[in-house]
Each structure stands twice: as structure tokens, then as C-alpha cells.
């Protein structure tokens, strides 16, 4: 009896113990699921039950100064595929084939994207236009949906490609103004989180929270599409005519510092930039600000400006050219090895005498000479706001007391041994054309946002030289052009001034590239009241290197058409008839 009772009690306790143990195990598992790993499981559940999309409003447009769009966005679609709906290979292949017919993305590529995806949902095709989007929607494929996005388009084609730059897949700027103005153009993306059903579609009465996106602002640039196109056409023609490697043209409005055109060659197709080939990435850079060069004789304008403004010389001041100037152990000759005897300061510019420029620099003294060089904006970025802009290089007794030699000033005086960007050079001459006031280069005129318009005012950097000296130098530039054959420089109806430059190309080891030159011409038009300053720089022309021959004609053709387009009245003597109303 006692033994039987003991057995019964033992069995009861065994059952109780089993129940307690099972309860304990279940409790432990619950603790693990709901407390220890709560965050992970909650996240997994959210991933399945909730969808989250980034909402992007339209990216702002880049407009030219008259409101014509140079880069704008239109609505587009990305095709999103929910990975688990493509787990069946046959169904996935059928869906991918259908999508491939519409999207131009190969079916195998789409299948690969989905197969390798780690996310719940992945885009398999981007930037579809409206018609493609509608076609995809009408397929009604399970687990495939359209996500609104935007596509960047360029109504003017490749105009100002390097300046404008381009955007990436996520509609963020990658180069040029697109990246420099990204925060303004891009606006603020929004986000929507919603509860979804098993197919990934939004539940009608599910949870939903939305932060609406803020649209990007339109940016009105200082660029004039007509002048920009002229610049690019003339640049292409000059490069073609001279078998050159490349070049740059910049057009500046001197009074405001606004950049009307900025063109560089070689260039790239902004509508289809090739990011896969690293060697082609050099094409993306805006050479007007990223590349430096030795300006050559164009720089004699700066040397003359210093000497004139210091009151050391006037255009008619005489000086004797022996054909050589000895500085320390170095001898400096004229470009044609000529000895011209008695010459005026005007003739130093007209005949582009290296010896004369060295004489003027020596007259100023190194402190004054480099003071003017810096006042004209060389050696520091012009603060254009464009990323990638470099300082250039000016070696002075102050910034390189051990490396600087006296002969450096002599060579600097005619634009050698000094590195400048095309934009720095153009802005410096624009200062001469603007009564001696150096302006900050301006590329953005207005920002038109949802809340209003912000107008960017021109900014003066400093008075570099007196207005009187600037006027004198401007007239001297007019005399320089008068001495150039009209076969090369002739702006019909307008008086213009300018200066040519032919310079060697410095190499990284400190020498010069043999038989390679940079030919340039910088001109001001019209001379009495300058409206434009044009820098034409042609890299490595094949035959003759002279700036007059290579770059002069491009300046003439561009200036003539640009002035007529800008409704700048021609010189009085060019008017052939008068009409009264």
C-alpha cells in the first residue's frame, strides 16, 4: 500500500516537474524573444510589415541669366522589386523579360541585382520616363512597383557641360555646379513610412507617417546661353583650325564680374557621362579654374599696370632696348631676339618686348611689383564658389625667401615662372576694364526658391589701381590692337583693346615641354565703355604658336557677335544711317 502510494506521488511530482520545466523553458524562450532579442525581432517585423520610401521633390533647375533652362528635372520612375517575389526562377525570369522590354535594362542584369540583394526591396531599373512608367504599371507584376524619382535633362545639350556638371543615380550632384549648389538645388528629401500587405502594397487603413519633401530652388546663373554657345563654337573652331589639343574661353562682364561664358575643351557628353573609365574623368574638370598655365605676354599688362599706377612711367616714357637684360647670371632676350633701340612704354606692349617688361618690373621693385600681382588676385583663388578652383603659384620674396631669385621677377614680368588660372587672368584684365576695381567672379545671379527670390549682388574685392591709370592702360590696349593685322583681330563696328600671349608649357620636373605652346588673346570690348572681357586660350596649336594668329580670330568673331546680341551700340563712325521716328 505504502509502496503504491509512493509511486503515485512520484508520478504526480514527475508530471508537475515536467510542467514546471516546460513552463520554465517556454518562459526562457519568451524572455529571449521578447526581451533579449526584442530589438532584432521588432526590426525584422518592421521590415516586413512596414515600407519606407524616401520622397524627393523635383530638383531645382539651373537656368541661364534669361531664364532658359540649362539643366532641369522631369519626373521619372524607379522600378522596385520585392526580393522574395522573385524567388521562383521561372516566375522571376518571366517578370524580368517583361520588364527588360520596357526598361532597356537586360533581364539577366535585373535577375542578378535581385539575387544579390540583401534588402527587402531593390531598384532594378532607374530613371524611367513617364511612358515607360505607365507601361511597367500596366504589366501588373506582383512584387514590382514604381517609385517616383526624377531625371536630369539638358535642353541645351552639352552646353557648359564642365561648368554645370552632372548628378548621380540618387539625384545628388557629382561634379560642377550640380555639386557646388547641391544643397540649394536638391531641397530636403522627405520620408514616408507605411504599413503594407503581403505583396508590399500599402494598407488602406494601416499606419502611415509622412514627412513631406521640400523642393529645390531654381538657380539663375550669370551664364548667357547665347554667349556660352558662341564661346564653345569659336573654341571648337579655333582648336580645329590650329590642330590644338584643347583650350578655354571665358567671357566676363567687367562692371559686375559676372561670368557670361566659361567653356573648356576637351569636354564630355553631359547626358551620358562615362564614370566607368577613370581616364575620362579628367574631362569632367572645369579647366578654367582647375588648371594653371604660364600666361606669357598677356601678363605684361599687369607689369605695365604697376608701373603706370605707381607713377613711374607714362605711355610715352622712353626707354632704350638693347635686346638683352642681364639679371644676376641670367640673360633675358626678346621673343624674336630683336634689339629695338629707343622705345616707349606703349611699344613695350605693342611689340611685346620681354626686355621692356623686365625693365618696368625692375623700376617698380620687387615689393611693389608683387604687391600689384597679389592685388590683381594672383596666387589665391578668385573665390568663384566653384569647387576645385586652385590658387595658382606666385613665388615672391615673402612667401619663398630662400627659393625666390631676382631673375624670377624679371621672368614673371612677362608671364613666365608664374602659374595662373584662366579665370584669374580674365578677372585681372576685367579689373583694368572696370576702372581698376577687381570684382569677385559671379556665377549665380538669383536663387528662386519656394519662399522667395534671393538676388546675388556683384561684389567688389578691391580697388587695384586708380581709375585714371586703368583708363590709360585700356587705351594702350587699344593701341596694341591697332598694331595687329585686321586679318587676325577685327571687331567690325567696335573699337577694342587687347593683348596677345604665347607661352611655353611648364612640365612637372621644372622644365618646359619642347615645341609646345599655349597661345592666348585677352580682349576688351568696346574700348570706351567695356561690356565684355574675353580670354581665349588655345593649348598646343600644331603649326604657328602666336596668340595673334591662333587666338585673335576667335576673339574677333566672338566679340562681334556677342556685342550685337547684347545690343551694345557700335562706335559712332560705324553708324551708316540714321532713322527718326
Amino acid at each position: 500500500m505504502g509502496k503504491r502510494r509512493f509511486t503515485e506521488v512520484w508520478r504526480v511530482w514527475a508530471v508537475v516537474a515536467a510542467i514546471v520545466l516546460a513552463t520554465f523553458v517556454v518562459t526562457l524562450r519568451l524572455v529571449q524573444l521578447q526581451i533579449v532579442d526584442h530589438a532584432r525581432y521588432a526590426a525584422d517585423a518592421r521590415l516586413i510589415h512596414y515600407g519606407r520610401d524616401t520622397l524627393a521633390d523635383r530638383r531645382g533647375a539651373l537656368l541661364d541669366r534669361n531664364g532658359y533652362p540649362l539643366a532641369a528635372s522631369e519626373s521619372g520612375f524607379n522600378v522596385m522589386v520585392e526580393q522574395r517575389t522573385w524567388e521562383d526562377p521561372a516566375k522571376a525570369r518571366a517578370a524580368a523579360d517583361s520588364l527588360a522590354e520596357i526598361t532597356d535594362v537586360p533581364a539577366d542584369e535585373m535577375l542578378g541585382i535581385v539575387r544579390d540583394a540583401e534588402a527587402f526591396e531593390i531598384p532594378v531599373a532607374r530613371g524611367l520616363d513617364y511612358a515607360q512608367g505607365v507601361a511597367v504599371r500596366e504589366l501588373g507584376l506582383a512584387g514590382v512597383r514604381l517609385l517616383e524619382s526624377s531625371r536630369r535633362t539638358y535642353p541645351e545639350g552639352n552646353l557648359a557641360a564642365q561648368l554645370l556638371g552632372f548628378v548621380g543615380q540618387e539625384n545628388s550632384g557629382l561634379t560642377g555646379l550640380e555639386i557646388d549648389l547641391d544643397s540649394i538645388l536638391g531641397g530636403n528629401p522627405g520620408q514616408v513610412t507605411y504599413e503594407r500587405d503581403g505583396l508590399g502594397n500599402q494598407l488602406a487603413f494601416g499606419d502611415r507617417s509622412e514627412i513631406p519633401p521640400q523642393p529645390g530652388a531654381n538657380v539663375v546663373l550669370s551664364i548667357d546661353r547665347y554667349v556660352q554657345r558662341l564661346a564653345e563654337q569659336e573654341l571648337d573652331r579655333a582648336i580645329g583650325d590650329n590642330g590644338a589639343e584643347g583650350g578655354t574661353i571665358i567671357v566676363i562682364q567687367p562692371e559686375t564680374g559676372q561670368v557670361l561664358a566659361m567653356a573648356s575643351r576637351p569636354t564630355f557628353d553631359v547626358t551620358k557621362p562615362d564614370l566607368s573609365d577613370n581616364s575620362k574623368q579628367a574631362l569632367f574638370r572645369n579647366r578654367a579654374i582647375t588648371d594653371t598655365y604660364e600666361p606669357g605676354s598677356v601678363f605684361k599688362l599687369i607689369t605695365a599696370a604697376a608701373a603706370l599706377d605707381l607713377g613711374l612711367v607714362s605711355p610715352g616714357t622712353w626707354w632704350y632696348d638693347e635686346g638683352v637684360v642681364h639679371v644676376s647670371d641670367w640673360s633675358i632676350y626678346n621673343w624674336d631676339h630683336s634689339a629695338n633701340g629707343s622705345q616707349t612704354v606703349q611699344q613695350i606692349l605693342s611689340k611685346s618686348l620681354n626686355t621692356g617688361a623686365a625693365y618696368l618690373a625692375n623700376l617698380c621693385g620687387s615689393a611693389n611689383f608683387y604687391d600689384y600681382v597679389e592685388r590683381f588676385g594672383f596666387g589665391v583663388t578668385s573665390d568663384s564658389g566653384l569647387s576645385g578652383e586652385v590658387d595658382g603659384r606666385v613665388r615672391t620674396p615673402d612667401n619663398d625667401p630662400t627659393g625666390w631669385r631676382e631673375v624670377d621677377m624679371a621672368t614673371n614680368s612677362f608671364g613666365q615662372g608664374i602659374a595662373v588660372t584662366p579665370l584669374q587672368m580674365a578677372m585681372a584684365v576685367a579689373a583694368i576694364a572696370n576702372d581698376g576695381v577687381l570684382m569677385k567672379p559671379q556665377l549665380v545671379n538669383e536663387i528662386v526658391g519656394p519662399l522667395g527670390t534671393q538676388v546675388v549682388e556683384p561684389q567688389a574685392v578691391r580697388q587695384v589701381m586708380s581709375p585714371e591709370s586703368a583708363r590709360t592702360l585700356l587705351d594702350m590696349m587699344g593701341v596694341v590692337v591697332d598694331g595687329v593685322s585686321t586679318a587676325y583681330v577685327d571687331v567690325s563696328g567696335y573699337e577694342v583693346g587687347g593683348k596677345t600671349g604665347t607661352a611655353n608649357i611648364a612640365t612637372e620636373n621644372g622644365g618646359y615641354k619642347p615645341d609646345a605652346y599655349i597661345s592666348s588673346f585677352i580682349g576688351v570690348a568696346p574700348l570706351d565703355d567695356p561690356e565684355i572681357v574675353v580670354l581665349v586660350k588655345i593649348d598646343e596649336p600644331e603649326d604657328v604658336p602666336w596668340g595673334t594668329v591662333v587666338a585673335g580670330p576667335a576673339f574677333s568673331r566672338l566679340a562681334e557677335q556677342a556685342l550685337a546680341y547684347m545690343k551694345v551700340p557700335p562706335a559712332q563712325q560705324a553708324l551708316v544711317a540714321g532713322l527718326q521716328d
Partner: protein
Amino acid sequence: MAANRDGSSAIPEVLQGTNIPVILIVAALIVGVAALLPLVQTSLATSTGGNVSRLEQLREDWQARLHEQELRVAGLGSLDRIESEAKVRLKMVAPDSVTYLSVDAPAPAQHRLPSRYLPDEKDPVESGSLWGDLFGWVPLP
């Protein structure tokens, strides 16, 4: 029907003489209809939600087409296309020489930014005087 010892009925007085099954059926119907109401409401709301979603889709489609048309217009106004039309269709050629005429008339107005790129103009808020605000309702001449 059961009756209490004092002879009164267990059925409330108001229900006495009424057919109980009928009451039960009516009650069941009321409960049924009441239960159907949320279902109908949910169904209506669902279909309305679907309609809203469809209309939103439609609006987005039109917006996309509008943007597409805006850019098509921009493309038609591009310099390349203008030059091509001038040369090919209108047979225009560049002039050999330029003649400048002096015209005694004002210059044409400068280009303005197309209105589609300008922010919406808001009506200026009229700010009257304090007395005007206080007695504005009085019908004075």
C-alpha cells in the same frame, strides 16, 4: 408561463402579452444590422481610400506629363533647334556684313525670367489702421 406565488408573472409588465419569439427575432435583426454597419462603413472607407489613391496616382501622372511638356517646350526653344530650323526649314543664312542703324527709339525691354520659374506671387496683406480695424464694420460713406 410561470407565475409567482403572489400570482404575478415573472415577465416584465411591458412584455406581458407580447410575443417573445418576435421580440427575439427583432433583437437579433437589430444586432445583425448593427454588426453590419461597421462592415459597410469599412467597405465604404476602403473603396474611398482606393479612389483617393487612384486620384493621387492620376495627379502624379499629370504632374509628370506636365513636367515632360515643360521640358519639351524648353527643348523646342533650344539654340540648336532654333538654328537648325532657321537654316534647314527657313533657309536662312548668316549675313556677309553687318550694318548698324541709329534708331531714335527706346530699347526693347530686357528679358524676364519665365513665370514658371518664379515663386507664386502672394497677395499683399492689407494692414489697416487700428481705428479702421475697430470701426470698419460701421457703414460710413
